[in-house]
């Protein structure tokens, strides 16, 4: 418990530093977001002025940041987009979609990744092992948009196995294909990590002892080997959950899922500081919580860590 509180306190400076950095970075992008907003048509100077005042764009960086943070903590106000939509409203709309996508991808990674890893480890050096190795190398090498568009056209459009895009059919149907695409990269890592770790542990003394004692093979693998092998895998899966939330930009674009990733991308282009900072803040918090959970989970998997 004290450990958990300690970890949460550590998060505060991380939180302040990241939000300020992000704000400063968005602020330092070249160009005038208000002029860009108007496109090819000129906006009269007084209109530009009114818009800049509204978004405090004429104030120095530190004042803007201060005003923004004051809004967040005093009024729970995350600011508004350049089209006048409150960021908090925008996030509640989009959050659920990204979370559903990330969870789908994560489950896919976890179940199929660990499964493939164990499968390959038990058949080390044989054809199945080589096939898993080749397959995962391929997935890691191919960019996600290629996987995404190909899966969409082949599995969605031509074969009709999955909806092509959008969220019309809800969870899980609409999220299966994008989840698999998003999770494919992590899956490859999980599979290889699991394989390496299981192979190593299968050679360990305690496993040999267990086998020598005449213990059933399923128990040797499932209870003794796997439990020890999963520590690096759990670390990866924990960190990767945050990655999945943040890294869904491309996948959300291809499958037209109006989630957080899509929003961040649009907002960076429009230089909408409040949105970028608002989203990043939440992502930072997710990373912190995910890492905390991973640390706590270590204790469950390996009692030595808990006591130490």
């Amino acid at each position, binding site marked *: 418990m004290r450990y958990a509180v300690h970890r949460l306190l550590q998060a505060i400076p991380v939180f302040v530093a990241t939000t300020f950095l992000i704000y400063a970075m968005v602020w330092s992008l070249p160009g005038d977001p208000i002029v860009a907003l108007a496109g090819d*048509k000129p906006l009269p100077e*007084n209109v530009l002025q009114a*818009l800049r005042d509204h978004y405090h764009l004429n104030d120095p960086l530190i004042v803007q940041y201060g005003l923004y943070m004051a809004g967040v903590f005093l009024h729970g106000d995350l600011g508004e987009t350049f089209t*006048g939509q409150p960021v908090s409203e925008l996030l509640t709309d989009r959050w659920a979609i990204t979370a559903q996508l990330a969870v789908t991808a994560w489950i896919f990674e976890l179940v199929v990744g660990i499964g493939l890893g164990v499968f390959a480890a038990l058949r080390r050096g044989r054809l199945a092992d080589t096939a898993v190795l080749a397959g995962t190398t391929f997935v890691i090498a191919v960019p996600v948009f290629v996987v995404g*568009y190909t899966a969409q056209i082949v599995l969605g459009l031509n074969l009709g196995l999955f909806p092509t895009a959008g969220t019309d059919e809800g969870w899980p149907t609409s999220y299966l294909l994008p989840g698999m695409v998003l999770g494919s990269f992590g899956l490859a890592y999980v599979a290889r990590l699991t394989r390496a770790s299981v192979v190593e542990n299968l050679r360990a003394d305690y496993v040999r002892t267990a086998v020598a004692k005449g213990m059933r093979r399923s128990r040797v693998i499932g209870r003794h080997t796997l439990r020890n092998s999963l520590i690096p895998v759990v670390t990866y899966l924990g960190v990767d959950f945050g990655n999945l939330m943040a890294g869904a930009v491309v996948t959300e*674009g291809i499958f037209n899922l*109006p989630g957080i990733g899509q929003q961040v991308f649009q907002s960076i*282009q429009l230089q909408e500081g409040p949105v970028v900072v608002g989203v990043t803040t939440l992502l930072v918090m997710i990373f912190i919580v995910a890492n905390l959970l991973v640390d706590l989970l270590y204790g469950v998997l390996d009692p030595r860590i808990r006591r130490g």
Partner: protein
Amino acid sequence: MTVHKKARGAAVLLAAALTLSACGGSSGDTSGDQGGKGPKQFSVALNEPDHLTPGNTSSSYSITVLQALFDTLVVIDAKGQTQMRAAESVTSQDQQTWTIKIKPGQKFHNGEAVTAESFADAWNAAAYGPNAWTNNYYFANIEGYDKLNPEAEGAKPETDKLSGLKVVDPNTLEVHLTAPFSQFPITLAYTGFAPMPKAAFTDLKAYDQKPIGNGPFALDGEWSHNQQIKLKKFDGYAGSRPAKSDAVLFKIYASRDTAYTDLRANKVDLLQTIPPASAGEAKKLLGDRFVPTASGTMDYLGFPTFDKRFQSADLRKAISMAIDRQGIVQAVYNGTFKPMASLVAPLVPGYRDNPCGEACAYDPAKAKALYDKSGGIKGTLNLYFSNADPSYEQWMQAVANQLKQNLGIADVQFKKIPAADYLSTLREKKEDGPYRNNWVMDYPSPQNYLESMWGAGNRMGWENKQFNDLIAKANAAPSMEASIPLYQQAEDVALAEMPMIPLWNWQDQAGFSNKITGVAIDPYSPNLDTITVK
């Protein structure tokens, strides 16, 4: 409609009947789509609009929605002619004081009557500086605009009403302009001039989310950001174009490639922007459900004529003659765009096929001779464009290669500017070389192109009294017909001096599913009211 299409429709019906009888015992409805008695609804692919208040958006995605929600005073038909819609007539003796008669008996979706005041209120709000609405500058030529937009920084306007707008009676609006303007009626077709009900002004923010219009469709529920916008047929509609279907569902996409995939999968019924790269495939797949539409959008290559190195008209013409427009359009835009030898787009009344003549024809030998005669360019030639779309860089590279090969310009560099910074770079005249210039038409009048881009205070820093006088004369001409020859003369002046080279005219490619008929997309509107659901 062609016989071919009917035959195909029959085949589809037959197939559907067979399928139905084959699985007669099962539950039947599989998709939740409009089988049988459900409301006749179709879906339209859209990008997220920025606003839905008519005075506060110039985004083409917003306008697609607004054109279904609102009836403007006049409209432009498929042939580019002005037709009355909410107005009975728009007339003037001197082209400066305009009298607009509004058709009586029209209603907003909330039951309020559409009157002269509905228009005056909407226009005042758009012209009021502190509101900071996008279409503010459209009202700059109405008397009293200065008062609503004081020059001094932070000054608050003393009034929020344009003195040039007079509500004579509920059906008559009088508009006083600051100068004669023969094109005024065409401008009224723009959705920025749509009326707003009194109910809008109690909460403008809420109105932007749930606009109340006077068109054949009304909003059904709220605008669900980044997901969908639902419209339903407005039963109290008394205008000239009642909706032929019960509902429209705008599905919002972030990528047009995805929207196109959904069209192929029959998940969306109408897509107005098939990506140029997929045009060939879409043509094959969709057959007569592939609809190319002319567009008013043009690309140009502008010169900084304020820069000493670009002050020779011969030099600018030589560059124009050294560019192979046809070749670039083929290579970069799949042949969908049209090479231009005119400053205005083909759909604009008064367009001529080739007023540019020799100066826009690809001729490397003549180009080189003219280039040498002009003295050429010393030093580096910088080409400016923004990073908003990868195709800009592609065609600029082609232009650079042609200038190197055909004119022997040794040192050509690219200045790729972030999209957010591009227009302010041009506005502040920071460029020192030719730049990509794009124009999206507001209304089909040569004036919209010529005065906006070559008129006073233009980006090129080009000034020509003869040109300005001809534009002023055309604006004051007694009728639209009388104004055309004068605009054409002005165009000739601009072409002779060539401060900006016409390159090509865009084209849109729409496609629709076999679930809908009566699609009548034209360059001015998708005309969603004419669509029926099978």
